[in-house]
């Protein structure tokens, strides 16, 4: 179990800066996720930790011990690959025991440890099966057992669930999280799926074009996104910008077009014009202005489009000045949402988040 320190690491491929001056402190036993769109450098960063990609600059240490100078086979990381990378010429047991044989563990020990590892991933008794006899989910479990059985200092997972179907993906991410908690191992997880990242991580680093946009706990990354990029990447949102017009107690009033928004903040806004976001589900449909809860602010909008998604209904609405406002309502009868209807929307000014320009 090990803390991982990434210090000012850079790497470019030709003219492309894949990773640019990234520093991260990953705590011992933490489940840490690198999240971002494809090409943001998250996989490159993971491969640098594993040793499959050279660093142009910077250092990587495990528990204060510098490891970026070690060849990949001497780093003692356990990696789970996107396509599982199960050796087709070995049985399940042969695959799981592969790393132990490389470490000259005695055959009796190997048998015992392989059995334990397979039990951990609910594949007891599968050790004599061949990979081609297994399903995608089972191969995934073999890959995880193979990475864990060597008792690595750090578990590295490179989009391990992207080849599974939706339902299995949800099931497996729960299992991976539980395993990591049970073993208390440090895990670094790469994904482009924000929901996956939110559900599984202790902390998330959102990456963009080789740099870190925000590093924080899942709810903080979602609710208090630092930049417009993070706000949009973490889920549907309303990105707005308004002029600071006045302060009302703990609120700052921002004028966007002809609409006033209230933002809860104790600090003075940094600039005259402020970019901010307001999540669709933070807006609640109320009967009229009198029904707005105490301390909340309200808006009047007109329904443009309704998208029914089952549990959730997404509604696109328009303010009087033409600005689009998206809302999301849970378990709401769709027939009350006729196009053209005027809605009164209430929101807590605490849910309005100021964004850094990025």
């Amino acid at each position, binding site marked *: 179990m090990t803390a991982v320190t990434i210090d000012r690491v850079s790497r470019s491929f030709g003219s492309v800066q894949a990773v640019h001056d990234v520093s991260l402190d990953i705590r011992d036993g933490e489940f840490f996720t690198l999240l971002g769109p494809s090409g943001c450098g998250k996989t490159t960063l993971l491969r640098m930790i594993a*040793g499959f990609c050279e660093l142009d600059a910077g250092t990587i240490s495990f528990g204060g011990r510098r490891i970026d100078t070690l*060849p990949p086979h001497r780093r*003692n990381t356990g990696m789970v*690959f996107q*396509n599982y990378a199960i050796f087709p010429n070995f049985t399940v047991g042969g695959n799981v025991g*592969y790393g132990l044989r490389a470490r000259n563990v005695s055959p009796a020990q190997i048998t015992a440890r392989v059995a334990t590892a397979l039990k951990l991933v609910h594949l007891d008794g599968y050790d004599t099966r061949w990979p081609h006899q297994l399903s995608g989910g089972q191969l995934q479990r073999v890959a995880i057992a193979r990475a864990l059985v060597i008792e690595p200092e750090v578990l590295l997972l490179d989009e391990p669930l992207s080849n599974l179907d939706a339902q299995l993906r949800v099931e497996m991410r729960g299992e991976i999280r539980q395993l990591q908690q049970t073993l208390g191992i440090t895990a670094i997880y790469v994904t482009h799926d924000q929901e996956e990242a939110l559900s599984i991580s202790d902390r998330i680093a959102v990456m963009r074009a080789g740099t870190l946009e925000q590093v924080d706990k899942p709810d903080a990354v979602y609710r208090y996104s630092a930049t417009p990029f993070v706000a949009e990447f973490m889920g549907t949102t309303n990105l707005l910008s308004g002029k600071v017009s006045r302060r009302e107690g703990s609120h700052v009033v921002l004028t966007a077009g002809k609409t006033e928004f209230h933002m809860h903040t104790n600090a003075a806004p940094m600039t005259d014009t402020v970019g901010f976001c307001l999540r669709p589900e933070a807006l609640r449909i109320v009967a009229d202005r009198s029904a707005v809860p105490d301390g909340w602010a309200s808006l009047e909008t007109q329904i443009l489009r309704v998208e029914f998604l089952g549990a959730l209904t997404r509604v696109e609405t328009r303010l009087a000045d033409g600005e689009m406002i998206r809302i999301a309502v849970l378990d709401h009868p769709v027939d009350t949402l006729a196009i053209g209807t005027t809605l009164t929307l209430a929101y807590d000014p605490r849910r309005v988040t100021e964004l850094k320009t990025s």
Partner: protein
Amino acid sequence: MSVAVPRNAFPLVVTAVAFTFLGLFFIYPLYRVFGASFLDASGTNLTLHNYAKVVSSTFYRSSVINSLTIGVLATLATTLISAPLAFCVARMPIGGKTALLSLAVLPLVLPSFVSAYALLLLFGRAGIVTSALESLGVPVGSIYGTPGIVLVYVLTLYPYVLLPTVAGLKALDVSVEEASQNLGASRWRTFWSVTFPIVIPSILAGALLVFIETLENFGVPFVLAEDKPIMAVEAFKLFVGETDANPASAGVLGVLLVCSTALVVIIQRRFLGRRRFATGARRSPPLIEAGAGWRAIATAYCWAVVLTSLVPFFAVIVISFMEYRGPVLHPHFSLENFAELFRRSMRPLENTLLLATLAAFGAAILGVPIGYVATRFRTRLTGILDIVATMPFAVAGTILGIGLIISFNSGWLVLTGGWLILVIAYVVRKLPFTVRASSAILHQIDPSLEEASVNLGVSPMKTFAQLMVPLMLGGIVGGMVLTWVAVASELSATVVLYSGQWQTLTVVMFQALEGTGAGLAAATASLLIFFTVLPVALVYRLLRRYEMSLL
């Protein structure tokens, strides 16, 4: 995706060993040939005199022109015959398609000079067919010179165009053609505006191999050219000439030959390298629903080409079991030709089997790691290694042989006169086979397998030996068999390098051609056919599985 792995000695070791071997036994000999062409008779002064002499000689000038003319003609003819053939095989309902494709691979492994020799036996001046027709009063045109050589090239080299074109047509995704038709193009228009342009690179890649093969081939022109000078043959004659051995002039022809093939390869890399259309086939287009008439025509065409190419070999086998009295053939079954062959000596057969086996192992031991390193550890250095290791296919065997003799006839390392120099020449010449085979298999194995192994604590060198070699084994064995077969029928370098007791079957045949022993030559040819077809037949399934593109 392949990313350079830091602090890894394995690719460096392989690259160093490979460059040492190729530098010593490929680059250096070529350099010596090059050097010889610029030295005067005393061997000390630089001069352009040799070039002037060759260029001013009508004879040698015409050898260059003849070689190039025959190469162009053969390439054009082969392409014109093979491209429609490939289309029929890939897209038309042809009777017995599996058998057809299996037979169509054979000319690649059968020695082409045997085909030339069969043509001579059948249609030569004293040929069986010629005599028969002449006795009936039917005049027969001469097959000596350009027509015969081009014919043999077409019949033996057409798979070089056929196989990549079929592969190209099958790699085309059906949706591309459907999109064209959906946008309003007729079937005919779709073919000319979409399908054909997409397979052009495959056709041209094959045509290039044909052209190079025709330039460097020694046996076919040696059998059929008669008085017509051909570069690869004249270089050999100049070098070994008993009365007027002239390594300088041989060097000049060698340099011209190597430059011609190198030029073609460079042009190909320039213009073809970028024109690669990967459509990422999920589903190949369906067979065309043609009428019975078209089907019959296509079937007849395909089988006619494939069977015609095999007739010469079949004829040689039949003839080898007939009785020769002097130069005259008698239509009786006899094993006398074989008895005669083995009475003389078993050594040539043993030599062929031994040398081919050594060379197959040598080429695999050297070529597989080269292919691995060049595919998986892409750096500028391994890129150069990949190019250098595939270059020998563009160098005529005769010229490499001459270079090896000039280089290792004296000095600190003397190799001439033994078996080792033959094995070295074979390994160099067939290295592209195993390098290409190795990288072809690797393209079917996900790189993350090796990364997983390394990640679990096994060093890259051990990963290669313990994990990758077993995974690649089928392909490696296939590549070795192809190397073995190619070496068993190798003539051009052997004829320069062999000495005394190290005669091979091809040399025996070569000598029999010069003399009058037609029965002996036919028996040797039959043995060669046996030893090339048998191993390929044994591993045919393996080769199909790895879709081995024969180089």
